[in-house]
């Protein structure tokens, strides 16, 4: 048998047992070498890792930037970057499980929470020094050398957001105006409130329901209590429920959120109590249907068709269900009063309801129905606020026109930008 010249010596040329042993030893030695680095060159590291406090936050974020690895290019050696963090320069460093794709030269370290809400990486704490390292990860998991940050980074909290000064000024001016008119009203000064047809009709609608012996249906929108329109709807519910109690009619309040149902139930109960008719309160009339948008619509439509209410109130936040509800209500012949601040749903309510409270009127309704001087005073303040806005719009339009003619003249756009 001719001997092989050069090349890899064949293991089978010796005794079979010794050959097998050699194979096992070789495999063991290979297993000690990290397989990931086998045959793959390490990419060159990123450089110039810099860090700074993330601006305008509560001191729990650090902004990191670096210069890309020279091997970070299409078809290059870099696959992604890895960040390491420590509170001491000498370590130990914890590897952060962020996946930073190639081509990225910045990252905001703000900790990480998984889909179950469990903290995977703690966020940087306020006023603690942090050190970072960055590594480029190559093909097959080969790691570059580390690039250490130049000095520690400290996250600090900011006590004031300078980008919101304009908003603060506007809020203060508006609040002062409203408070001024509330104060004027509390002194007994006569204030003129423009009549709102939709609210004038509330009493008429409840009266009609009483005469017909049919219930009043009140829908406080489909959103939860963290929505200001729902809050406005629930405050109006208090007024309507009191009138209903005084007229000895029934009120049905199907809710799409259980928290709204809980609060609506208390509001109606208190309204009956205030009207001196706690015995007439029927807790079963305030019911939870479902959180599902169209499931709720189906449920309310079913109530309308079975109970045939004489007056329907839709006051709160509505989306695509607005027209389905209002058209079903119209088909059962109910007087319908709607109110929302959703511009996209207002046309549907205008088309299908008898009266519609548009935008601000929804928020004014409870105060208007209360007839209480202090509450009415706030409405006057609100109207004055509107006048100020109107003046700003006119002045802004004039300046914008001149700005088109001469861009260097004056720019007030930045005054109204909110960060």
């Amino acid at each position, binding site marked *: 048998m001719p001997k092989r010249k050069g090349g890899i010596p064949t293991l089978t040329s010796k005794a079979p047992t010794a050959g097998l042993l050699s194979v096992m030893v070789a495999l063991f030695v290979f297993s000690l070498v990290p397989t990931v680095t086998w045959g793959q060159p390490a990419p060159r590291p990123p450089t110039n890792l810099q860090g700074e406090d993330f601006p305008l936050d509560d001191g729990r974020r650090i902004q990191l930037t670096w210069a890309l690895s020279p091997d970070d290019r299409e078809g290059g050696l870099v696959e992604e970057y890895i960040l390491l963090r420590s509170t001491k320069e000498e370590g130990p460093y914890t590897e952060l499980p962020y996946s930073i794709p190639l081509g990225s030269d910045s990252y905001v370290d703000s900790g990480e929470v998984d889909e179950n809400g469990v903290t995977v990486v703690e966020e940087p704490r306020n006023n603690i020094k942090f050190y970072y390292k960055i590594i480029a990860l190559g093909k097959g998991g080969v790691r570059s050398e580390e690039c250490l940050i130049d000095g520690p980074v400290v996250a600090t909290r900011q006590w004031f957001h300078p980008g919101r000064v304009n908003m603060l000024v506007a809020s203060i001016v508006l609040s002062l105006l409203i408070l001024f008119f509330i104060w004027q009203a509390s002194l007994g000064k006569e204030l003129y409130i423009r009549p709102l047809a939709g609210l004038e009709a509330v009493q008429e609608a409840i009266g009609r329901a009483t005469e017909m012996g049919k219930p009043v249906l009140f829908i406080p929108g489909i959103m939860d209590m963290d929505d200001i329109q729902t809050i406005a709807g629930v405050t109006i519910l208090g007024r309507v429920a009191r009138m209903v109690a005084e007229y000895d009619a029934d009120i049905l309040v199907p809710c799409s959120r259980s928290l709204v149902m*809980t609060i609506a139930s208390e509001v109606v109960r208190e*309204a009956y109590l205030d009207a001196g008719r706690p015995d007439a309160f029927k807790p*079963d009339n305030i019911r939870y249907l479902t959180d599902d948008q169209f499931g709720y619509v189906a449920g309310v439509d079913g109530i309308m068709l079975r109970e045939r209410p004489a007056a329907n109130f839709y006051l709160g936040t509505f989306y695509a269900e607005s027209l389905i509800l209002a058209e079903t209500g119209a088909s059962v012949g109910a007087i319908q009063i709607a109110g929302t601040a959703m511009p996209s749903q207002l046309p549907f309510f205008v088309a299908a309801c008898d009266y519609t409270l548009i935008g601000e009127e929804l928020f004014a309704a409870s105060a208007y129905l209360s007839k209480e001087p202090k509450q009415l005073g706030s409405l006057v303040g609100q109207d004055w606020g509107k006048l100020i806005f109107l003046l700003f719009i006119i002045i802004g339009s004039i300046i914008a026109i001149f700005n088109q003619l001469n861009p260097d003249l004056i720019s007030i756009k930045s005054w109204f930008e909110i960060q």
Partner: protein
Amino acid sequence: MKKQFPLAIVFIAGMIFIVQFFSPAFTPIQERFTHWYIVVAVFAFVLGLANLTRLNLQKIHRQQEGWIYSIPLLIGLAGMALCSFIFGIEEGPFVWLFNNMMLPMSATMFSLLAFFVASASYRAFRARHKEAVMLLVAAVIVMLGQVPIGSAGFMEHLRLSDITQWIMAYPNMAGQRAIMIGAALGVVAISLRILLGIERAYLGED
């Protein structure tokens, strides 16, 4: 005390949310309040579930009008809950039921909108007064301007799509913004009334 304590809670919680908007340092407190809200909402969900179950069981027991519909409702409620507890919500019968029953039924309700739009439009576009005439004209232009027939044949010369764009970008946008500005002012006013305890209708007090 029964009224003052809730008012104090409302004032403190409301002020924290306002202050946080202008001072990022208060974000952790605001987040804590938001988490509390979620906890409260979860408890309220149990109440909602109890309310739904009780009312429907009562309806079946008393054989009130439409009681028969309460049976599939309760079976569906219990069935979906059991499926999710046993098989999870990522796969298995829960997902199958959701995709093959919930979604088609929701889509069916949503599709009713097409018919309701037609009936509401018919009512809204009756030219009874000059505002309704304006609405009708604008609606016809916008409708024709957004479909191919609006630029076909002689109508090409009317440039309806340009007029549509103008209507949407100027009169329509101006109206929407006016509503938004008014609503923002209304939000400030109602928030102040609630924070200062002037508006107490939600506590059942005038």
